[in-house]
């Protein structure tokens, strides 16, 4: 069977939070806002299924919107790394 056909949408699963790839401008703006270097953010591997699904490359920043038991919904950012 064709491999592509069997692929499911990762983000349709309840427990997988939304991953959004930031554009270069957005990323720069964020880093400026937080006054940090990108490596100071938590990391995500480029091989992470979610990162693969949105086509993130090392050096990119991914915005993740997930549920939180304390705040309802939170936005976190991750820096995409190699390996």
């Amino acid at each position, binding site marked *: 069977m064709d491999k592509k056909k069997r692929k499911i949408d990762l983000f349709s699963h309840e427990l997988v939070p939304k991953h959004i790839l930031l554009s270069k401008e957005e990323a720069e703006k964020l880093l400026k806002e937080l006054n940090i270097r990108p490596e100071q953010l938590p990391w995500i591997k480029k091989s992470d299924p979610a990162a693969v699904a949105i086509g993130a490359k090392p050096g990119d920043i991914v915005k993740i919107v997930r549920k939180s038991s304390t705040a309802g919904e*939170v936005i976190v950012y991750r820096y995409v790394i190699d390996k």
Partner: protein
Amino acid sequence: MSLYRPPKKIGAIKFGLLSPEMIRKMSVTRIITPDTYSEDGLPIDSGLMDGRLGTIEPGQRCKTCGNRIGECPGHFGHIELARPVIHVGFAKTIYKILRATCRKCSRILLPEEELEEFKRKMDEYEKRWGGLSEEISEELIKKASRVSKCPHCGEVQFKIKFEKPTTYYEETKEGPRRLTPIEIRDRLERITDEDARLLGISPKDARPEWMVLTVLPVPPVTVRPSITLESGVRSEDDLTHKLVDIIRINQRLRENIEAGAPQLIIEDLWELLQYHVITYFDNEVSGVPPARHRSGRALRTLSQRLKGKEGRFRSNLSGKRVDFSARTVISPDPNLSINEVGVPIDIAKILTIPERVTEWNIEELKELVIRGPDQYPGANYIIRLDGRRIDLRYARDRRALAESLEPGFIVERHLKDGDIVLFNRQPSLHRMSIMAHEVRVLPYRTFRLHLCVCPPYNADFDGDEMNLHVPQSEEARAEARVLMRVQEQVLSPRYGGPIIGAIQDYISSAYLFTRKDTLLTKEEVCQLLSVAGYKGDLPEPAIKEPQPLWTGKQIFSLFLPKGLNISLRASVCRKCPGGCLKEKCPYDAYVVVRDGQLIAGVIDEKSIGAFQPDSILHRIIKDFGTDAAREFIDKIGRLLIEFISRRGFTMGINEVEIPRVAMIRIQEILKEAEEKVDKLIESYRRGELQRLPGRTLEETLEMQIMKVLAEARDKAGDIASEHLGLENHAVIMAETGARGSTLNLAQMAACVGQQSVRGERIKRGYRNRTLPHFKVGDLSAKARGFVASNYRTGLDPIEFFFHAMGGREGLVDTAVRTSTSGYMQRRLINALQDLKVEYDGTVRDASSRIIQLVYGEDGVDPAKSDHGKAVNIDIIIEKVLSESERT
């Protein structure tokens, strides 16, 4: 002043073996003579105390680096061994390698193809993980050790026997033949680098032959300093003693070899050298008699310095000792403030605070200096402007010294009332385990603390000891006072409620005091209020004739802040089935406070207890601040203790005695239940029992029996409580939440109930029965651990036995739980220890990497929130309503 040097970051740690060349390269001198000092007390050149090995004497300069004591790190020397010896630490490894390699060509005893396969696996592993796999080499060694003929050179292999600690034999056809370290070293030398890698040894860092020592490093004198006793006799470190032995035997061995002595003598000396080197490394090797001091004490050599509780790691690296600290037994003092700690006068005379002399305190400090170290309050040291420290114990004329005091001097004065100190009880599991207290210097020999601070420390007075630390800098004291003082820690960050509050008798007393029928005469009121420290007018008495009487509620209200509005259900609330009648509750269990007046309800655990969120105490802290809360706890505490002391409150065995009729009723109920159980068993035996869905027949039976018995126990308990009135002290304690539960009461008065092991009725013991008193297969209540007796009348032997079984399980459970949760706690603390909320609100680690953008994702401090929520609507509504009511 010494310059602050930023700590360095450790990039990696690599473990390996020292090569003989490396040892020689590290060495500043070869050590030849076993002697240490010459007759005139100078270190002998090329001896164990050679000046080039570093300096241990003050004023002396190191011959190698020119530094003085403290700055000179010490330098290694070396001993050239006359014959190689095995390093005990690697004896096992050597054995494994010998078995896996050929006795002639030293290749691994596996065919080339197999080695190729192992190499492929090992390369893959190393690429993935950056190291060699112990698992792969273990597998290879296991496989190669079984081979009896070398696939490379065809040599027949002998079995190798290892005898602890360092002897190896080859079992030839002619009998066992001993392998000398020389032979072993030869074999290890011939192992190729590639083979070594497959054996799990990285040849760059550790060639196999380095496990057989030919050169021994001599540690610098700084790690084995000699000490001069008062008598002037020099006493050497254990390591030095051991090194002397090694050098002596080494010398004799060399002389004998050079003189061509008989093989036997050389072998003996060689063996002796091996012994000394073994015990130099580790003096607790099994099968080796430990080397002893002349006194008979076993020497503390290298391994003993590191290993175990008293070793370098656990004692010096994980555990540190500090000055300005004290430890003693604790005992209670309800007259202290929660912020205070009672410090024994003997301790106050030893612990000091450095106080800088100014023109405003000079007179006071002069007085302290004159009184000196032995009279309290006094002082122990003076530090002059030039930094010189004067010990007042040895000062001849303290009066003159006091006169010489001038601004800028520092006087290390005794601890006095009001000083801030840190107080701690282990295990320090949360931040309230170390709090700042104000000192109260008291007679006797124990630390004293207020009973309400027992919960955060988890302290009791059955012999508990606590530690006290005196902050020495102004910043530390300010920080302690602002952040760590007990009153600042009342609200727990764990669940946003007070962790400090009334316990036990405070709660019983509060209940008795605020009951409707508590009426106090003017005399009583005045005495209670004066003990509590109330300064103000008496309220109008509730009853004016025939004599003025005040209610407990009125007096209690005097300590509630004006403007406090709260209502809550007390602990004694019966959860009335028809819905709560609120203010009209017949049990007075609905607490209503309006504008600081206790209108209705009794005060008990729910209102002032520790661990009670949304209580009166909680509202006072949140709405009126920590000072108000401290004052409330202090005053109410003294008042309640005084009240309950005057009234009297006891519990004896009679407290849980119930009338004969009731006892008979209970026995009937229990008997009925037992009969019911027997019926169930019978129907099970006949196969008439209906199986519950998802359960086996046996499980169904067990469940039904348990249900019947539990119901019977509850019923028995209910009957007992009917006869234990609300005036009963045990009942008061249970109902108000002061101590114990209704279940405890039922067990004491009526029936202990089913004992269980692993959540089931007891079934272990003999084959198909619990005890030999029962028939095989007996499933009745009694035979399976049902205790029909109560604690007051006592248990029969069989019941007692089952009870002990259940009790034992509980003890084992807690022991296991504390050790596993302790381990988890340590791991969590290690992982989280330097996380911190920065000024920009982000949570970051030590290398300022972001962990969270906002603390807890919502930025709420649980200690300052209501149940983790930023606002509690209910409380705001109540506040607004009660305020509008008044206007």
